């Protein structure tokens, strides 16, 4: 099984709450290959809950992912005390499997609280694994709020790709 799907299964087994956001989240909303973007990163948005974060770390360990924060291996022991510190700092934990998989466990989604995103999520199926995914409008609004160069590039290309979904008579004129 795909390494990401194995991780999702492990997260579900530990009842970890998470929502897939970012470009991979947007990809699951695609309705044709023309709206799918190549990306390595899977961004998982987690609530600021130390027990939940600890569960996520344990799940990552179980499927063989290496954990790091700020480019350094995550300290050990990986216990509730450490999870509380990470939550307080709203720091990002990165989980990686060689060059096969990169997952960011983030406690921050620009412009949104976790509970809002969780409440409105979609649950898509991928090879019989249930993937909680943020609403497309939430993903796009968050990227618009963050407004980093990579977000702007995504928004511009995503807008162009979605334009083709509109009936011809409703399409705006192409940018010259």
């Amino acid at each position: 099984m795909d390494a990401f799907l194995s991780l999702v299964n492990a997260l579900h087994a530990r009842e970890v709450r998470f929502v897939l956001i970012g470009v991979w989240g947007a990809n699951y909303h695609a309705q044709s290959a023309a709206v799918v973007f190549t990306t390595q990163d899977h961004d998982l948005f987690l609530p600021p809950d130390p027990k939940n974060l600890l569960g996520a770390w344990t799940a990552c360990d179980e499927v063989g992912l290496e954990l790091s924060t700020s480019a350094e291996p995550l300290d050990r022991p990986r216990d509730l005390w450490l999870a509380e510190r990470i939550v307080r700092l709203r720091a990002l934990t990165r989980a990686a499997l060689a060059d096969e998989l990169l997952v960011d466990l983030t406690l921050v989604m620009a412009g949104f609280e976790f509970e809002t995103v969780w409440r409105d999520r979609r649950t898509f199926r991928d090879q019989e694994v249930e993937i909680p995914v943020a609403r497309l409008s939430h993903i796009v609004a968050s990227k618009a709020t963050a407004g980093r160069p990579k977000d702007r590039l995504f928004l511009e290309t995503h807008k162009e790709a979605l334009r083709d979904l509109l009936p011809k008579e409703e399409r705006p004129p192409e940018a010259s």
Partner: protein
Amino acid sequence: MDPETKRALEAIDRVCETPTPTGPVELDPDYLKAIERVESSALDQSGVDKSWVRKILQESRDHWRRARLLG
């Protein structure tokens, strides 16, 4: 060059030609309308099988991994 690729490259050019400011971006009404359309579609509801998304990305990665420089 096919029209979709041409439009994508033009979009990248537009972004590259302008300074790269950071900060909130205002989303235009046509884009928001397209998003609304996606979200109301039957293909964007919970329970839908999206396995094809991962498959085409994997195929794309495999394709580029096999690429060899000629000449």
